[in-house]
């Protein structure tokens, strides 16, 4: 698989790898190497200019819009810049994926409140993202990705805006999610953090290619 923007050079090329169900991996490499691009390809928000992506057993090039929507409901994404909606409260942001499926507010209220408490935002439910700290926004973004209990979680630098202590706590949260059955891909360039989770596979992006290092059992 390869991808280029317009007539420019290929950002990523000759990629050939798979993410196994219930696996845990870091996606790493220097800034600008194409980590975010790879995550967006996995989220199907970008289409490869050559080659194919097979996701949950389906060829992404052959997906209809409704099938694409159904697949995205099985994926949770944590963006580097959080991408929370400022005119909604933290609670409404976290509930958004459930609301988007057409569920009534009464049917998911308890789940959302419990998850918000679990990520330590129980007392910030009514706050607008504009008044949240970087760490709180990060946790809200993570909660939004987790609320649908995704089969695949993609996180782009989820610890980039938080202090080392919180970063470790967030990572433990992802590990816990992995144990519950979710495949996790975390993009980061924090080597120290990766070293603390040596069991994780590492996908190292460089020069548009990916080199894979299996984790230590």
């Amino acid at each position, binding site marked *: 698989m390869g991808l280029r923007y317009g007539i420019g050079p290929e950002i990523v090329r000759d990629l050939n790898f798979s993410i196994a169900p219930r696996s845990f991996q870091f996606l790493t490499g220097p800034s600008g190497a194409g980590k975010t691009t790879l995550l967006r390809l996995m*989220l199907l*928000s970008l289409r490869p200019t050559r080659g194919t992506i097979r996701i949950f057993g389906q060829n992404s090039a052959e997906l209809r*819009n*409704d099938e*694409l*929507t*159904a697949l*995205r*409901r099985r994926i949770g*994404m944590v963006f580097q810049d959080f*991408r929370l*909606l400022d*005119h*909604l*409260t933290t*609670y*409404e942001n976290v509930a*958004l*994926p459930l*609301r*988007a*499926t*057409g569920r009534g*507010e009464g049917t998911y*209220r308890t789940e959302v409140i419990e998850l918000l408490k679990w990520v330590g935002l129980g*007392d*910030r*439910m*009514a*706050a*607008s993202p504009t*008044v949240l700290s970087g760490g709180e926004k990060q946790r809200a973004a993570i909660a*939004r990705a987790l609320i*649908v209990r995704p089969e695949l979680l993609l996180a782009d630098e989820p610890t980039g805006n938080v202090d080392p202590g919180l970063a470790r706590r967030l990572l433990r949260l992802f590990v816990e999610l992995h144990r519950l059955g979710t495949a996790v891909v975390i993009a980061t360039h924090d080597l120290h953090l990766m070293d603390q989770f040596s069991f994780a596979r590492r996908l190292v992006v460089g020069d548009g290619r990916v080199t894979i290092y299996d984790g230590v059992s």
Partner: protein
Amino acid sequence: MIEIVAEIPRAKNALPAFSRNVPLIPANSVAGRALVVVVAIMTFLACLTAGAALLVAKASQEWRSDVLREVTIQVKPLTNDDIETLVAKAATVAAQAPGVASARPYSKTDSERLLEPWLGAGLDFSLLPVPRIIVVRMRESSAENLARLREALARDAPEASLDDHRIWAARLGMMARAIVALATALFALVIVALATAIGFATRGAMAGSKEIVEILHFVGAADAFIANEFQAHFRRLGFRGALIGVSAAFAFFLGAAALSSWWANSPGGDEIAAMFGAFSLDGVGYVALAAVGAAVSLLTGYLSRSIVLKDLQKLQ
């Protein structure tokens, strides 16, 4: 010593109001307010044209009904017979004809007064063979009754001739239909202009809400869900605009009705009343204006939904 006491507002941290679903497309934006103004103006213009068409259509029906119910018998003093006798005879024949409600002869003075605008006052009309008029009111306008009246006059009062104003009524009707057609065309143009403005506003809102649309896609929202959100957003804006426009149109027609009744006794009042009736819409008219407002509100939502759905198909 200066002591500063800062109180951190806690309202932001209070439990949210869970009972409502906040609109995902922010309600208050500059583009949104501009659209409310455009919809308000367009709705007002649409209501004006619709109201004018209704007024003219109603007035035209009244004119034609009045004109066709009234016919005129003219008695010309062409023989040496006494004109008063001929008039009385023709009036009697007319009054006895089927379908006639009344036959009122104009007196000699009345007939002469009809000529005053053209010949001036103070003229000695005894030197002129002034024809005499009998105004006949029919119970209902029917060609059969008119034919019988014409026959009766030809048989029993041959000096009298009947004028049933049908040509005049036909011209009035044609003019009224032309005015109604023009108002309908203007109404259609206003609606087309409104639809175009909604199209621009929707695409503007979509461009302004690109981030929201992207996030909604990423969290698994279907195109129909996003389109519903835009539809609800524009229906709300459309409703606000339409409400303002319809209210302004109500105020205009109510004000016009009050003014026309105030002018009714002035010299120009007769002409205005002849053209637009009493210049007041009836209950059906106001219901029609409210229906225009409701239709504009629904049209705004529906159009934006179809535009959003079409654009989302290209986006994914």
